[in-house]
Structures are given as C-alpha cells and as structure tokens.
C-alpha cells in the first residue's frame, strides 16, 4: 500500500528567456570512455555530451559509475580508453588543477574541506584574493566575498567559523559555495542535495537556474528524481557502467528513469506495513543539553517507527547523539523498557540495546581502510565468534548475507570500504547496525545517497525490525520518506519538539509550517 504522495515534484519554473538547449553547441563531449578498477568495470564505453546553458542530469543505481565519470572530468582519474573534447578540441585532464584551469569546477560527493580552517579560507582555498605587490592574501575581501556567496545560498553564517564545527549539511553548503566562487563554465554537482533539506535545496536550484541562464553548463547527479525533474533539461541514465539512454527531461518521467536505471518496474516506493505498537521501549524525559536541546520529552514503542523532521540545525542529530552517550547531557532521564538508564558512552548505549546510525558516514560511520566485512561486523562482535576470537571466514560469511540483501556493489567482502561508491558505503553502515542485537534504533538520514531501488529494500528491512518488536527513531530530511514510513512524526525546531503529528494524516505543508515557524526560538539559543 502506497500512502504518501510519492510524487513530490515541485513545479519547475523554467526560465523562458534562456535559449532552448537543444540547439546549443556541446561545450564538453565524452566519447567511448572506459575505466576499470581491480575487479570492477566502472565505465564501459560511455558517451556523453554537455551543452552550454543546460542542466544535464546523470542518474543510475549506486555503483553505476556516475562519480567515476565526474572524477574523470575533474582530473582525478585518467580514463583507460576514450577521449574528452572541450569546445570540440581533445583534451587530457591530468590533474584537478588542470581541470579547474580549463573552467571545470566540481562539488564532489564526498566532502573535501580542511576541517581546521575556517569557512572563508576553505571557500577560497587555492584562489585567495590578493593585494599589493607581495601578493599578500586580502583577508577582509576574502571574508566579505565568502559571506556574500553564502548569503546568495541562503546561509547566514560567520565565515570565520571553523569548518570542523559545522554539521554535514552546512559543510555541504560550504562545498557548493567553494565551487561557485570559481565562476566556472562547467559546473559539476555530484549529489549536492543528499545532505541538505528541501529548503536549502530549493535555494541551490534557484542559483542553478541563474547560472544556466548565464550560459553555464551544469552536470547534476541526484538520487532524488524530483530534483532531477525540477532542475534538468536532459537526463542520461547509466547502468552497470554502461550508457543506457539520454533523453530530454520533458519527454520522460521519474517512472521511466527508474525503469531504465534499475531494469525493472518499481511498484511501491514506501512499503509501509501496519504494525501494532507494543509497550514503550524508550522514554526520554526533559532531556536538556545547554544551548542545544531543551526539555525534550518523547517515547517510542516496540513495533513503532517514529519519524523526526526539522530543518538543519533543529537539534535532531544532537538529540540522537545525546541519547547515545556521545554528547553529555545537563538534565533529563532516559528509561529503557521501563528501567531507568544512565548512558555516558556509546558502549553503554549499545549494551542497553541502542543503535545509532550516524549522519556523517565518512567520519563517524565507517573505518575507510577496513574491508566491507570488517566494517559490517564492527559493532556486533558477538555474531562472529567467541569472546576473543573473530575468524575472518566468519566475518565474511556474516557480511555476505548483507551484501546480497542490500545489493552492496563490491567485488568481494574483503574490498576496502573506501573503494566503494558513496551509496554503497551508506549501505555498509546500515548493514553494520542491522547486524547488532539492538532493539531500539536511531537512524540519522539512513537513505542518504542510496538509489531508489535500494531504498525500498532498506524500508523493507526496517519493516522486518518492527515486526520483530524493535523500535525505530528515524531522523530524515526527506519529507516523503518521513511521511511514507512513520507511524508518528515529531517536528523539532531550535532544540525543542514543537509538534507531534500522526503519520497517516500529516502533510508536507504541515511539517514545514511547524519546522520553519517564526524563529524566535533561535534567538533564545544564541
């Protein structure tokens, strides 16, 4: 049964003044591009062309080869075969620097900021404005320009703040600002909206529209087909590293794109099953962390999926972190299965049957050099051996079940997880927590970067957990997902719970109204 409005496509205000992209000349063209990695053919004779003033969307399942294509275009990887033409001339892009010099600017899927530097310096890294004959960095100008760029993106933040102190969503916005100040002819955005909420995405797409009108050529990668439809002029579908189709956006639909990506029809986007909530699994009362969380009280029952919605910075991830013992709390009590619990470290949380899938997979979710198998078993040592032992064969056989179930695309269970595509890495983090013996799950943006087909499998796995009597708290910035899967929905704003809604009757508008209501509470925090 499909209950939520799955087609969340926003009406696309297409700029009518821009020339129709179909008659524009290709600024960038790829011919017969191949790229192989040990055990993987990432790109298999892929052709692609990009015209001035168009937004060309690239879609495909996790591991289809989208980011590999991007990395070839930005000078990180060299193609094994094929040629790249820029303005009709063959070019070789040997280094990222060379690509930038030729006017290709990229926002990569993985964040690439220097955490100890402040926002302004990150944005202008390598192209600092200078002054005087000595070429001294002109910091006042740098910070002013950085602030302007961020404001254009709808972000009001001090550019002197260190990037380290920002959450993933803000880091993503800094990354986008960094690509924009380059003022490139070709702008590549690899899943720019995976980590941000609809609000910021809307702002980003407004800028994309402006750039397109100015003649910038843009490649956009997204698993949100609504974004694709909203912003794109043409779409190219990749599957298993092969080119499948290139179509004008106006002549296709999300449904057709999915069929071409996955190779089969997808009937249900949100396979929600009705369960009968049992007794209270977790009760949080008056939880307070000064300046971050204020008097948060809620409960979640066995067999219940509690969605938490809110804008970036509303305190959703912070709530999960506090309950999981990562951040200390100033006041409040936590009751688990009727017994009071004092949790001061993740280890104690896990011992109480809690699990937290963190929002930042690279920093908090994964051990990148470790194999897929070892990452999956890391939080559940009891599943793989004795008190001391952890034989590799056992680790791998446990992991292989999830590689199959979640369709993790990897040459083997022993592949270092850093070599997987972004979406497949996210699946590994999911598998890790699904394997634990936990019965109270906190999923913070669980499907970030996961393709449409695999999302359904993730929801199915959640259903199984609920059937087994687990309680799930799902923090998500994707409202269709929150609406489609939750039994109840909490809306947070400024570190408080401001509304509780019924999952069956709530609407996007209702959630947004609560999430963004006049922000007097923000001042209270500051």
């Amino acid at each position, binding site marked *: 049964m499909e209950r939520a409005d799955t087609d969340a496509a926003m009406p696309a205000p297409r700029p009518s003044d821009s020339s129709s992209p179909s008659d524009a000349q290709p600024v960038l063209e790829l011919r017969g591009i191949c790229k192989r990695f040990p055990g993987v053919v990432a790109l298999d004779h892929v052709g692609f062309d990009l015209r001035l003033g168009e937004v060309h969307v690239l879609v495909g399942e996790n*591991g289809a080869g989208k980011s590999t294509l991007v990395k070839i275009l930005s000078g990180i990887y060299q193609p094994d075969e094929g040629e790249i033409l820029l303005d009709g001339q063959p070019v070789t892009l040997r280094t990222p620097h060379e690509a930038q010099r030729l006017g290709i600017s990229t926002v990569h899927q993985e964040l690439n900021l220097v955490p100890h530097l402040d926002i302004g310096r990150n944005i202008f890294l390598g192209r600092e404005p200078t002054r005087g004959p000595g070429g001294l960095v002109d910091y006042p100008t740098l910070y002013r320009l950085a602030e302007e760029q961020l404001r254009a993106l709808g972000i009001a933040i001090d550019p002197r703040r260190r990037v380290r102190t920002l959450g993933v969503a803000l880091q993503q916005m800094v990354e986008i600002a960094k690509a924009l100040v380059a003022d490139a002819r070709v702008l590549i955005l690899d899943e720019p909206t995976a980590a941000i909420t609809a609000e910021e995405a809307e702002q980003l797409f407004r800028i994309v529209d402006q750039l397109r009108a100015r003649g910038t050529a843009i490649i956009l990668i997204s698993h949100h087909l609504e974004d694709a439809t909203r912003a794109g002029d043409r779409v190219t579908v990749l599957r298993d590293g092969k080119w499948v189709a290139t179509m004008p956006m106006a002549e296709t639909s999300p449904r057709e794109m999915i069929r071409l990506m996955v190779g089969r029809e997808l009937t249900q986007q949100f396979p929600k099953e009705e369960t009968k909530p049992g007794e209270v699994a977790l009760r949080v009362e008056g939880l307070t962390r000064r300046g971050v969380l204020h008097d948060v009280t809620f409960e979640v029952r066995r067999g219940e999926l509690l969605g938490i919605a809110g804008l970036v910075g509303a305190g959703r991830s912070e709530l999960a972190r506090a309950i999981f013992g990562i951040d200390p709390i100033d006041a409040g009590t936590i009751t688990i299965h009727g017994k009071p619990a004092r949790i001061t470290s993740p*280890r104690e949380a896990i011992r109480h049957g809690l699990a937290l899938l963190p929002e930042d997979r690279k920093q908090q979710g994964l*051990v990148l*050099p*470790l194999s897929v198998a070892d990452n999956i*078993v890391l939080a559940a040592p009891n599943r793989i051996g004795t008190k001391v*032992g952890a034989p590799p064969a056992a680790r791998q056989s446990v992991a292989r079940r*999830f590689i199959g179930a979640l*369709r993790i695309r990897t040459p083997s269970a022993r592949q270092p997880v850093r070599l997987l595509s972004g979406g497949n890495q996210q699946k590994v983090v999911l598998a890790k927590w699904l394997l634990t013996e936990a019965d109270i799950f906190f999923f913070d943006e669980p499907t970030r970067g996961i393709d449409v087909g695999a999302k359904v499998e993730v929801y199915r*796995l959640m259903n199984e957990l609920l059937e087994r009597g687990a309680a799930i708290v799902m923090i998500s910035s994707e409202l269709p997902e929150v609406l489609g899967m939750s039994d109840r929905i909490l809306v947070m704003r400024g570190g408080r719970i401001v509304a509780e809604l019924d999952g069956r009757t709530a609407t996007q508008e209702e959630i947004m109204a609560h999430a963004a209501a006049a922000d007097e509470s923000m001042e209270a925090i500051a």
Partner: protein
Amino acid sequence: MSGSARIATEGAAARQARLPAIGSFWQTAGPLASLFVLGFAIWLVEPVFLSQTNLLNVARQASLTAILGTGMTFVILTGGVDLSVGSMVALASVSGGYLMIQQGWSMWPAVAVMVLVGGLCGLFNGLVITLGRIPPFIATLGTMQIFRGAALQLTAGKPFFDITKTHPQFDIWGTREYAGIPAPVIITLVVFTIGFLILRYTRLGLYTYAIGGNEQATRFSGVNINRYKLGVYVLMGLAAGVAAVMWSSRLNSTQPTVATGEELNAIAAVVIGGTSLFGGEGTIVGTLIGALLMAVIRNGLTLMHVSAFYQQIVIGAVVILAVLIDRLQRRNA
C-alpha cells in the same frame, strides 16, 4: 537478520561479487619482490650469500628487529608509535642479569621476570597514552628516557658479563641450535606466528586495524578503545621482553646500553613492510619481510666489504624508497 535475503532480482551487485578481489597480497608483494631481486643481485656478486651458513646468519641478524617489529606493527596499525622499545629491551635485560648475577636467582624465574618487565613497561606506556591521553609519540619519548635511566640506575651503569658461567643453561635462547636452526630464528618465528594469529583471528586484531583506521567510528560502534589500545602496548612490551631474553643470551651478558636505537630499526621494518604510519593499513608479514630486507642489505654490503657507514646510508635510502613505491602503488589503486 534471518529473512534479509528478500530481494527477488539478483542485480549486478551479486554478479560482481564473484569476481576475485586483490589487495592484501599485493601489499606485501612489493617488499617481497625487492627481497628476491636484492638477494639474487647479491648472489651474482658474492655467491657465498646463498650458502646455508650465511642465510642462517642473515636470519639471526634479522631476529631482534623482527621480534620488536612484530609488536611495533600492532602499535603503528592503531596509529601510534613506540619509541621506548630499545629502552624496554635494556631494562628487561638488566633486570634478568641483576637477578641472576647479583641476587643469585636461577634462570627460569629470571627469564620470566625479564618478559614480565617488558610487559609492565608496555602497560605503563599504555596507561599514560589512554588514561593520560598523551599522544603516543610524546608518551614513549618520555618513557624511552625513563626506562633507559632505570636500567642504568639498577646496574649503576655497569654490565653483567658471562652469565653462562653461573647459569650454563642461559645459552638456550640465543646461541644454541636446534636441528641446525639457531635459537633466535626459532624464537622469532614463534613470536611472529603468535602476532600473525592475533592480528588475523581475534577481536584484538580486528580492533587494532579499526582504531587506526577511524577511532571515532570505532568508538561509536561500541568498542572499548582504551582496553584494546592498552592490550596493544602490552603486546609490544612482551615482545620487547622476549627480545631481551634472546639478545642477552646471544651476547651472554646484560648491558644497560643495549639495543640503543633499536626502536628505529623496528619502525623501519614496519614501514618498509608497507604499513601506513597513519594506522589502519598494513600486514605483519610485511614487517617480517622488512626486517629480512634490512638484514640482507647489511649482510650483502658486509660481504662486499662496504663500510658500516655506507650501510647506514643505504638503509636510510631503502626506507624512503619503500614508502615511495608504496605511495605510487596506492595512487594506481
């Protein structure tokens, strides 16, 4: 998750999953190839290199570095380093000499104490690093002085010679041969095998890699980081204790100045073996090859009558070269 395999369509993911993965083998292939090429080259110039006596000699020379390198691999895999191992060997050594010569202990309890002293030194390092939250480099830079100072203080700076005169059995660890194989080589192989098994088959091994790869993510997974770090430094200490027994027996004396600078050889062996100094990546087999490679170079140059000064220059160059080759390999991956 019993019924997790609910997916009807077997996608490309499953098809790809059957292709073989390469990885850990190639990590050690580079150093191994260098070892063979180098051995072959030396043999061309000095055929005596491949004689049984000489090869056993090389193995014996590699033993101290290999034993310490085994422990050092664990430490470096966690992203740490232990600069105090040379001093630990010295303190463990002289403790044994002191007990046997000065206090008249018999050999077995004295040897047990030597290993134990190593373990306690490691425990001390581990406590300073975990509870004191001092970076390993700084913590062990300090204990390097402390342990060496303690060794000198205990013996008033003087060595104990000729231990076999009072304890004739003491030569079993360092000079005797069993079925033609020198004792140090056997001890090295035993330590190496234990290290290999721990790293591959136990939780401690898994977490050693995990902590070095991403400590935060590992902590969020509920792993008791401090406990396993402590374990790693204790292992390092025990290895130093064993090395002390072997080495004192070989020298038939214990000296407070012994094994000075040995920490650097151990670190070099680990690095040549392809382990990342940032932690998280590497193998213990690589370390053994690294230790052998250094011994082969020294032996070969000695056979060719190259001065010890040049040998040092060459070893230094090899360390840099090994890391450079590793970098280049990684870039292609």
